[in-house]
């Protein structure tokens, strides 16, 4: 998501920060580029215009033009505005009532039912809540079956009615069932509808009046075009939505709809759907996303993703190994498998600051990871502990055993050395983390390759060789 936007901003800002002094013309030119980048990302035309106008005003002010580093000041202005546009910190769901009732609404095909399942799973796993999933889409063929199948797969109770076409009756029944089961949360999956279909929107208003929900969440496709604004405005006016869930962010939509919807409703984006599996739902962090758009990376999300994969004790052990540089191929193999679970190397690199250019030069084929697994599995225990043992004979044996050319085994070993070096750097970083898992406050954002964290410096250096 936002990848292309990131590319464009990166180039625009490199031009800006590359200069000692900025003229009004420089700013104007940059703003034209920013506007175009936003439009290409499908940000609504009017939203893009307003955004650029407010940034321009501030950039042309004394504070930026007279500063010692005007380029970086301008970038900071854009960052601040972008963060404001995306919303401040993550806003959690309102779980105050019991049952807390959440209604999912949206256009057809935006992903409401899948999201209902994901959300139920997340609330149970992360928040330890008892959830009831209610099928309130009585229109789409097999929508009820879909909720029931998801409920069975996730082992989450569901509520469905096949004896009525009255949605209000269904939601009343669902609430009674949630009380009976003593559920903490009731999720209502509604039928997809057009925001301009007055009758069907009124139906939602009646549902809202009947159950007084804690959250009305608009589920929207991240690839929505210019109409995103109309969709969000209509639903918001009729129902007063409390938040947004963006779906299908695993595509390469540039995510402009996110900016538009957030801007016109003022409501927070609470979650993002990042894949087809039930685990693929993440809390949305606007401030991190703004940094990512500007190519400043998102270390916090990286650490959190890693935390999901690594047990605490295990990660302490790993950290120790990294620091002592005693990380061996066995560890490498187990990490490799975890990285695969985290979405692959390229997805992880996105979260690092300053890796944009580096990544382009890096030709990572995720399939290669399978080869790597095979090669390591073909080594003896001693070789895995100390790859330096691999002389020509041993290397040939491993290559034959795993069905790859000798060169590939050699490559792996040399890459492993590089990885170990990198890891020892990361180990140092992890050591500096405060108890809540956050890294020390980041230095002021700098773009254009001047401030890069030391690990990445090393990676870049290697990358060029």
């Amino acid at each position, binding site marked *: 998501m936002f990848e292309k936007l990131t590319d464009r901003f990166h180039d625009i800002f490199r031009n800006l920060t590359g200069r000692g002094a900025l003229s009004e013309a420089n700013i104007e030119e940059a703003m034209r580029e920013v506007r175009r980048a936003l439009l290409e990302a499908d940000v609504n035309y009017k939203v893009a215009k307003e955004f650029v106008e407010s940034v321009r005003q501030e950039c042309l002010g004394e504070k930026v033009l007279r500063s010692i580093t005007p380029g970086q000041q301008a970038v900071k202005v854009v960052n601040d505005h972008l963060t404001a546009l995306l919303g401040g910190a993550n806003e959690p769901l309102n779980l105050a009532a019991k049952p807390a009732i959440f209604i999912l609404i949206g256009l057809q095909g935006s*992903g409401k039912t899948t999201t209902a399942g994901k959300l139920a799973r997340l609330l149970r796993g992360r928040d330890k809540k008892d959830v009831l999933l209610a099928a309130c889409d009585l229109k789409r063929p097999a929508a009820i079956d879909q909720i029931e199948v998801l409920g069975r797969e996730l082992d989450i109770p569901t509520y469905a009615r096949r004896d009525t076409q009255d949605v209000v009756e269904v939601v009343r029944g669902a609430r009674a069932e949630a009380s009976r089961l003593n559920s903490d949360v009731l999720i209502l999956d509604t039928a997809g509808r057009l925001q301009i279909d007055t009758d069907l929107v009124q139906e939602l208003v009646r549902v809202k009046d009947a159950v007084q929900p804690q959250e009305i969440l608009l589920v929207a496709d991240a690839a929505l075009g210019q109409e995103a604004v109309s969709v969000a405005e209509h639903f918001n006016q009729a129902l007063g939505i409390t938040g947004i869930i963006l779906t299908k962010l695993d595509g390469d939509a540039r995510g402009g709809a996110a900016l538009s919807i957030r801007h016109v409703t003022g409501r927070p984006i609470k979650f993002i759907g990042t894949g087809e599996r039930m685990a693929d739902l993440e809390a949305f962090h606007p401030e991190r996303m703004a940094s990512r758009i500007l190519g400043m990376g998102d270390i916090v999300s990286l650490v959190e993703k890693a935390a999901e994969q690594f047990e605490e004790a295990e990660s302490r052990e790993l950290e120790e190994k990294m620091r002592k540089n005693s990380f061996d191929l066995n560890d490498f193999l187990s990490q490799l498998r975890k990285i695969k679970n985290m979405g692959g190397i390229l997805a992880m690199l996105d979260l690092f600051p300053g890796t944009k250019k580096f990544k382009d030069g890096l030709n990572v084929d995720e399939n290669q990871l399978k080869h790597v697994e095979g090669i390591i599995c073909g080594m003896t225990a001693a070789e895995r502990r100390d790859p330096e043992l691999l002389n020509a004979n041993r290397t040939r044996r491993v290559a034959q055993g795993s069905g790859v050319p000798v060169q590939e085994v050699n490559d792996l070993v040399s890459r492993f050395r590089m990885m170990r070096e990198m890891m020892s750097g990361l180990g140092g970083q992890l050591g500096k983390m405060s108890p809540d898992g956050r890294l020390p406050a980041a230095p002021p954002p700098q773009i254009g390759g001047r401030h890069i964290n030391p690990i990445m410096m090393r990676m870049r250096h290697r990358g060029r060789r």
Partner: protein
Amino acid sequence: MKSLFSIFKNGLQKTATSLVRGVQSVFTETKPWTAEDFEHLEGLLIQADLGVVTAAELVNDLKERYDRGKIATREDIRRAMAEDVTKILEVAGAGNPFTPAAKPPTVVLLVGVNGTGKTTTAAKLAHLWQQDGLKVMLAACDTFRAAAVEQLVHWGARVNCPVVAGKPNSDPAAVAFDAATRARNEGMDILLVDTAGRQHTRKALMDELGKIARTIAKACPGAPHEVWLTVDAGIGTNAVTQAREFSKIVPLTGLIITKLDGTGRGGSLVPICRELRIPVRFAGLGERETDLQPFRPDFFAQALFEVKVTGSP
């Protein structure tokens, strides 16, 4: 019976109104038009999801014609835009249902990203062709999404069309192979294969699609004869990337624009056709099985810019 033009017109009413109102307010007929006016026009086209590049190209072209005195009135502008857009959309095969295979069944593969309306479209196509007296079979190859197979089975029962379905999480290529074999043996005219929605960025899923196509060819040589991508009218310029990426895996022979009854403009069809020259076959305009119409580039463009058509009501 409503005319095809009025169906398009109703479908695009909301879009057309804001676009045309925009044109009317930007261009006055009392003063010469400025570069700024044309920039506004570009903005209007971008707001119809035509994308930055296509909008700029169309507007530059119009401006040049204005400078040369070829167009002078607001009516001219709208007509010229409608003509230009029609020209872009008039790819060979646009609006044509399908080319029957030399040896039946003709296999039509429906592909697209998640939530674009593949399953509903499959049912609508089955209904339409059965009305034409053709023997149609449906294959439910979305074995991934919960209850997707049930969805198509429900539809099959509603439109009275046989459905070959796989078990949840079974190999979709195997289902497709079964269906193709059965369709051939049972003398079907058409086999409609509904596939799981997939993001074009997911390599494994795209590879799976390639495999489905190759497997079908094993049961029916030369198949799939048609591969159609469903495009959601509400999606922005990412639709262009979707079309580009899908066509790398399975050469697309057609597009179906879905949900055109909403406020989505389907404007992304213009940059898709401009770049990839894929004909638009049908337009989905509602949730009922009858809500599918052959696509007409001229009607679409004329409805978009509210240009009067001779012979239309």
